[in-house]
Structure formats: C-alpha cells, structure tokens
C-alpha cells in the first residue's frame, strides 16, 4: 500500500529532515510511527499526501508513484487518504458538522448521504451534542476529535494520524484507538505518529522509529 525507496527530504539546503527512508506498509496494516520531537514524523506523513514533495527517492501510495504525480491529480490522491493533522486544521468559521462534511463535499457526495454519515461519525467520536458549534468554542480534545471525524468520514483507503491523542484523556484515547482499530479491521491501512509510549506498548503493533530523520531498526 505504501512504499518508500531511498527517500530524502530537506527543507533547507544543508539539513535533511528525512534521510534515506525505506519502508513498506501492507494494505490493511496498522503501524505506529514514533521518535523524538523533530525526528521527521510529520514530514514523513506529509510526503504521503503530497503536502510536501520528496527531495529524492520514490514513494508508492496505493500503487501510484507520488514522486511523479501531476499537480492536478493531487486532490484525487488525497480523497483516498484521511489525515488527522497535528494542529487539527479546522475551519474556524464553520461548525463541527460543516468541517466534517467538507471531506464528503469535495468528493461530490449527496446531501442526504453527507448528513447521515457526518452525524454517525460525530457520534462515534462522542461529539453529537456539539454538532453546530464552531471550533473556537470547543475544548482542545473536542477539536481533535472533529479532526479525527473528518479524516474517517469518507472511509479512506489510508488513514494518517499525526499525534491524534495528544489532547485526549486516557479513556478517550482508548476509545479513539478502538475506533481506529475497527476501521483498520474493515480494511483501511492506518499509520499513527505518536509520542504516547503507553499506547504503542499496549497495542502490540509494528512501530517504525524515526530519529533525526533516519529510520531505526
């Protein structure tokens, strides 16, 4: 599902945020991505949905070579990838409902379908009572759950989650992780960047460890 061959990424001339990354994630797999702050976790995820372009190397996502993808095909790539951003990236002037609905609107879903799916997903993350609230009027953990709901709502083939439980309490963290496991069980490839060591240890899933841009083994 995801493969990287000798991938490098450098934002500035002399430093590599990622260095010679080689990895392979199978369809339907559930992997963690860990490593200290600034190791390159977010950068690696960004490469996968083309928010950044690799400096060198080849990346295959869903059988497609991203290094060669045309600018105009990027939106279609992204529609198959749900992303939970580290900084949420919610639209502050739209309600929780509208934020989640956005992911369905861009693929041209029908109104009815949007309504029912958004409602169902917001319920899954426990926010059905905040459906018409705008992000700035929500608690940090509530915002994070909206970001999660938006990533899940259109059943993506791949789910990339960047520190998705950083603002959640332990109980909610378990709930959300169970949600991700469910989705994974239904066939979605899941990749989670996290610092939550307890979580990684408890789940017994494969974990990729980054350090200073390099993949440890």
């Amino acid at each position, binding site marked *: 599902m995801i493969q990287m061959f000798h991938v490098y990424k450098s934002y500035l001339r002399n430093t590599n945020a990622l260095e010679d990354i080689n990895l392979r994630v199978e369809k339907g797999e559930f992997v963690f991505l860990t490593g200290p702050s600034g190791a390159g976790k977010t950068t690696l995820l960004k490469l996968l949905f083309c928010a950044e372009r690799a400096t060198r190397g080849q990346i295959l996502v869903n059988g497609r070579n991203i290094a060669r993808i045309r*600018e105009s095909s990027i939106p*279609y790539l*992204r529609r198959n990838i749900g992303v939970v951003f580290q900084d949420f*990236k919610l639209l502050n*002037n*739209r309600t929780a409902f509208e934020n989640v609905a*956005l992911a369905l609107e*861009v693929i*041209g879903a029908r109104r009815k379908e949007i309504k029912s799916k958004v409602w169902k997903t917001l319920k899954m993350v426990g926010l059905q009572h905040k459906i018409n609230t705008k992000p700035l009027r929500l608690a940090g953990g509530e915002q994070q759950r909206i970001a999660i709901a938006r990533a899940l709502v259109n059943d993506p083939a791949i789910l990339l989650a960047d520190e998705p439980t950083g603002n959640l309490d332990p109980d909610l963290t378990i709930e959300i992780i169970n949600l991700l496991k469910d989705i994974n069980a239904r066939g979605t490839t899941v990749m989670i960047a996290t610092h939550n060591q307890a979580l990684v240890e408890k789940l017994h899933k494969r974990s990729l460890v980054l350090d200073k841009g390099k993949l440890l083994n």
Partner: protein
Amino acid sequence: MLFERAIYFLERVGQNIRQDAFINLVTISTIAITLLILSTFWLCFLNLNTFLQNWGEKIQITAYLNERTSPEQLEELKGKIREIPGIKEMSFISKDQALKLFREQLGGQDGLLEGLNSNPLPASWEIQLQQDYQNSEKAAEIVGKLKGFKEIEDLQYGQRWVERFSIFLNLLRLATFFIGGLLILATIFIISNTIKLSVYARKEEIEIMKLVGAADWFIKIPFFLGGILQGLIGASIAMVILYSIYKFLIDAISPVMSLSLGAGGLTFLPWNHIYWFLLGGMLLGLAGSFTSLGRHLR
C-alpha cells in the same frame, strides 16, 4: 446531480457571506463607493455634454445672397444646400427683414439709417448645423462648400467664437476622457485589490480545503460566485445611491437651475447604462477573485 451541485455552491456562497460578514461588508461597500464615483462621473459627463450641445446649437452660418438671384435659382440652390451633409435647417431672411433686424440691432443708433434711399442689405439664409457638425473645423468645411455656389456672395459664421467654444469643448473632453480612463483603471484596481485582501484573509481556508482533497475548481467556484455577487450588490447599491443623489439635486436645486438651463434639465442614466454598470460590477467582482486566487492555489 449538476443541479444539486449548483445549489450546494449557492448555499456555500450564502454561508460565506454570513460567516465572514465583516469582510463582505467592507468589500461590498468599497465596490459600491468606487462604482458610485465612476457612475457619478459618468452621469455628470452625460449631462454636461447634453447641456453643451444645446448651447452649441446656436452656432449658425449666414449666407448672403447675390442681388441678382431669381426665386427659381433660390429654390434650386436651397435643394443643393440641403444635400450637404451636416445641414439641419435653413431659414430665409429677405432684404426687408434684414433691414428691420439691423435697425433693431442698432437700437438707439438707428438715426444712422435715416438718410438711406434704397435698402443696401442683401437677403440671406441662416443655416443651422447638426449636432455633430457643431465645431469650428466642420463648420469651416461646410462654409468651404457653400463658397462654391456663385449665388452666395458672402458667408459669415462666428468663427472666433466657434473656435473658442470647440477648443474649450475639446479641452473638457480631453480632461473627461483622461479622468474617466483613470477612474476606470482605478476602479478595476481598487476592486481587485480589495477582493485580494478579502481572499487573503481566507487563505487558511483555501489551504485546508486543498488538504482535504478539494479540486481547484471546487475551491474557486464559491469565490467566483461570491465575487460576482459582491460586484452585483456593490453596483446595485451604487446605482441606488446615485439615483437618490440625483433625485435630491433635482428636487432641491433644479427649480432654480432649470429656469436658466431651459427645457431639458438634468437627466438620469438611461436603462442600458444602468444595465452595463451592473454587469460591469459583476465582471469586476469575478475578475477580482479570479486574479486573487492564483496566488493561493499556486
């Protein structure tokens, strides 16, 4: 499906306006005031032009006729002159009428004419020109043609006056077109700048839309529709305000003015100009969002 999409985008535009009420207010009011200036200028120009043309209409050519012209020759000549392009009207003044007018003109000095035993004044035609020919060059051209007729002994037209008037008109038109052109450029510039700023304030929204997989057109359409709507609303407001000002001037100042201005008075923009202004507003709004989006969509 297409219909549902259209509804979706229209709803989206409506929501954007509500959600960013402040930005929309500022943008629309800027568009309105800019177009108000442009349309006020245009209205003034139209009225001034009408006024000047009415005024200029008094320019006329007097053709003095040869004493030996018979009535038949006169008829024939009249037919020929009528064929010259630019002639609007011609009225005949006989020798007797000419003397009478002259006497009137002399006023107190008409004792001067008492010693006369015959009437030395020739008969003449007073020739009115069409509006397009109300300037010194055109008038001189027509005079040139009239000189060709042997029945016409002498020609007079207020050369100096006409020259001055048309220099003045040209100067005024030059200034008008110059300011007008500049105003149009400025309008385009200001409206597109304002829309640029309002799009800039929403650049994060654009970025997020892209990140969740929105195609460029999907992001752009609500902005385009929004721009068109802002332009339309702005232009409509401009027209309403312009009409109110016009109405106010008519009611407050016109009674005094129309006495001296005579018949026509002030007129408002004709319907088709209003139509063009509204359309122009919409196009400017569209163009403004069009150029602004480039930046943020790479």
